[in-house]
């Protein structure tokens, strides 16, 4: 009876440990997967490391997992990649003097478009308002 109880306790403890290890593993996997989707594969420039089958992408996936397992933060991994391949590896480039246009460009274009639209509308209104008196009289006659 006692042996059986001990076996049961041991089994439960082992299962718990295995489950804990699994949770640890999957949390790391999740972080690695997120990072892999943020990093560009330079061999095939329009794919992320997660999507690419290039051998370099495989190596980098291995490297990312190893670094995370060693306790590196997500930022550490990104810094590691940027130090080697430059900002270009980041799918979300950092805001710097060189990249201001990249970030602000769409808003500038939107503002430009809004400006022209506004100007057009106000001009048309002005044109409507400035109908000469004789034409206005003719229009009024036609409308009667």
């Amino acid at each position, binding site marked *: 009876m006692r042996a059986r109880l001990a076996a049961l306790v041991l089994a439960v403890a082992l299962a718990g440990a295995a489950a804990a290890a699994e949770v640890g593993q999957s949390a790391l996997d999740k972080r690695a997967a997120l990072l892999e989707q943020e990093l560009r594969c330079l*061999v095939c420039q329009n794919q992320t490391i997660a999507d690419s089958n290039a051998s370099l992408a495989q190596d980098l996936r291995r490297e990312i997992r190893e670094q995370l397992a060693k306790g590196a933060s997500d930022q550490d991994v990104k810094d590691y990649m940027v130090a*080697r391949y430059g900002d270009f590896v980041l799918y979300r480039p950092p805001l710097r003097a060189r990249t201001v246009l990249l970030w602000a460009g769409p808003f500038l274009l939107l503002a430009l478009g809004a400006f022209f639209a506004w100007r057009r509308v106000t001009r048309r209104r002005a044109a409507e308002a400035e109908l000469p008196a004789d034409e206005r009289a003719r229009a009024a006659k036609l409308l009667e």
Partner: protein
Amino acid sequence: MSRGWIVGVFVALVGVLAVGLTLNPREVPSPLIGKPAPAFELPLLEAPAKRFSEKDMIGQVWVLNVWASWCPPCLQEHPVVTALAKDDPAPVIGLNYKDESANALAWLKRHGNPYRLVAQDLDGRIGIDYGVYGVPETYVIDRQGVIRYKHIGPMTPEVVRERIRPLVKELRGAG
């Protein structure tokens, strides 16, 4: 909007796109330029018991050429590397990247070995440290062990003539 405006915007757009067409999206500026060459100690391809480190080259201007026997552009580049090594403005060291020793040795035997020596990066880890992503790649490293230039893809005779030689000359001249 007046017609002048539309033409102006169109011309500006054509200008921007024309400049874009002349750029090479594969030439990603390397963050390693101006930084110390990443440290390594690797076995030599032809004598794996011996090791080579980038520190062995301190005091000399040298060229590091990353290649592999499985890489067709490396074969295309091979005559250019050979000419550069023969002319010897600076020692050319090979970094054999993710290759098999037997294949690499056979490749050198068949096409000729232009390298002063070849270090072996079997698992590509040193390649990662050097930001290698498209073999062949070539680095010019100065006397202090700082990377001064990086060329991605096969070197052409023009690249050697217009970039690498003048830079090596300048670096050697600069004490």
